[in-house]
């Protein structure tokens, strides 16, 4: 902009100072004079200014205030978010519960038993499990064990029931049908029915944590209903942190 000399000239000559720019040229005497005075102000030197400073005091304090606000917000927000997300990363305890002596169960039909999968929630925490002895004539089964089929439908989690004459598990919600081993034979389910880990201890058959199987009865850690476990599909639904099991 203008240096000292041109300002002197501008004051004395009024609107004759056309060379300084279109804005200036259009203004009449008084306003032109004001603009000149404004241009004559020395560069702003706020308190604490020194030659070669890289950050002004105002910028430093603005940044400091924002940083303090950010730290304070994070101090409140991060624990709250962690608190809400905590259960996603906490693995549930592995417990076993008795369902009866081995003599209660047979090879060629299921016996319903009720177990508690969540304590302290009353009836909502109980579920029916269909249990039988393993049958070595069926694919993938060895003699001497037990199969405990979860009633949670592999479609969206409704409770299936065992229809003995038809040898089928049937879901009331969306028509999922499973065979004697729990494999899908009809309807929308994407994988066989889940199972529970079984063991015999102190003369009692005991049920442990839930696990899922794919269509070849290969064992996976418990998945939620509706999640595929075959082929490439299984990579869309990784193992969760909350359930035990290798994969």
């Amino acid at each position, binding site marked *: 902009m203008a240096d000292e000399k041109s300002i002197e000239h501008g004051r004395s000559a009024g609107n004759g100072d056309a060379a300084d720019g279109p804005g200036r040229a259009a203004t009449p005497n008084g306003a032109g004079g004001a603009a000149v005075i404004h241009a004559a102000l020395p560069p702003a030197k706020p308190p604490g200014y020194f030659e070669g400073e890289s950050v002004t005091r105002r910028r430093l304090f603005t940044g400091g205030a924002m940083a303090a606000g950010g730290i304070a917000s994070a101090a409140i927000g991060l624990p709250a978010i962690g608190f809400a997300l905590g259960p996603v990363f906490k693995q549930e305890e592995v417990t076993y519960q008795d369902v009866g002596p081995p003599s209660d169960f047979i090879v060629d039909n299921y016996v319903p038993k009720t177990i508690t999968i969540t304590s302290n*929630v009353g009836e909502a925490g109980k579920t029916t499990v269909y249990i039988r002895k393993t049958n070595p004539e069926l694919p993938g089964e060895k003699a001497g064990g037990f199969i405990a089929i979860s009633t949670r439908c592999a479609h969206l989690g409704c409770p299936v029931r065992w229809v003995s004459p038809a040898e089928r598990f049937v879901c009331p919600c969306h028509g999922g049908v499973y065979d004697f081993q729990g494999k899908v034979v009809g309807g929308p389910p994407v994988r066989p029915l889940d199972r529970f880990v079984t063991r015999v201890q102190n003369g009692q058959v005991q049920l442990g944590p839930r696990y899922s199987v794919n269509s070849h009865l290969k064992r996976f850690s418990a998945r939620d209903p509706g999640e595929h476990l075959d082929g490439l599909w299984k990579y869309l639904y990784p193992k969760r942190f909350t359930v035990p099991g290798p994969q």
Partner: protein
Amino acid sequence: MAIKIPKPPIPGVRRTPKPPSAPQENGRPPVKDQAAEIGAEVVGWIDERTAASGFLRGFLFRKVPKGTNWFYTLGSATMFAFLSQAVTGVFLAMYYDPSPTHAYDSIQHINNDVWLGSLVRGMHHWGASVMIVLVFLHMGRTFFFGAYKYPRELNWVVGVVLLVLTLGMGFTGYLLPFDQRSFWATVVGVNINGTAPFLGPYLSDFLRAGPEFGATTLSRFYAIHMLLIPVLIAALIGVHIYLVTKLGTTAPPWLRAKLPETDREQV
């Protein structure tokens, strides 16, 4: 072209007062005038300290385009449904117990024992469906009238977020009666969420607070239903209405802009 904007109407109390009527025998103005003056004084006192009248005049007496009709009331109707849900929800929370063993009994208690309990719960229950219906009608109005176009795209986006939050209210609120229907519907709903690839399984665990439907699932849904989402909805309704006020509403698509004769010649 300079548009002459008429002054917006001023609320009655702030208009120039009438000339004083004949004073009483003791020399004071009539009681009726004194009473009227008190109202004006209070409004004036508040206005002097808040300067709210300028904002309220612009907000409440803003101009709307020709052709504005009953379809334009669907947004306000939706907001009224939300307010109704908020008020009845606050009072239901006084009796509701979000624990798995007592939730169902507390709802039965509200329905059968509490004075007007079935009415307030009925308003909340049916009002929820009314709000969903109104949200979709409002969205349809905006879509078919082309009211989402420039410069109102951001308000459409805010509206879509409000739609999702409203559906979230429906999803979380459905569990709270804790009867067979609400329990199994929520099991199915959570599992539908879980079928989303990659993040779905973790989302299910987040909603249930664990791998199975557990003791804290109900209180978690309750907290989301009555604290988290309502605050978000209220804040976004504020943004939504601010943008409506700032940008104005659109004329219906069947009305064409009429230019004055002088302007038509220039064109």
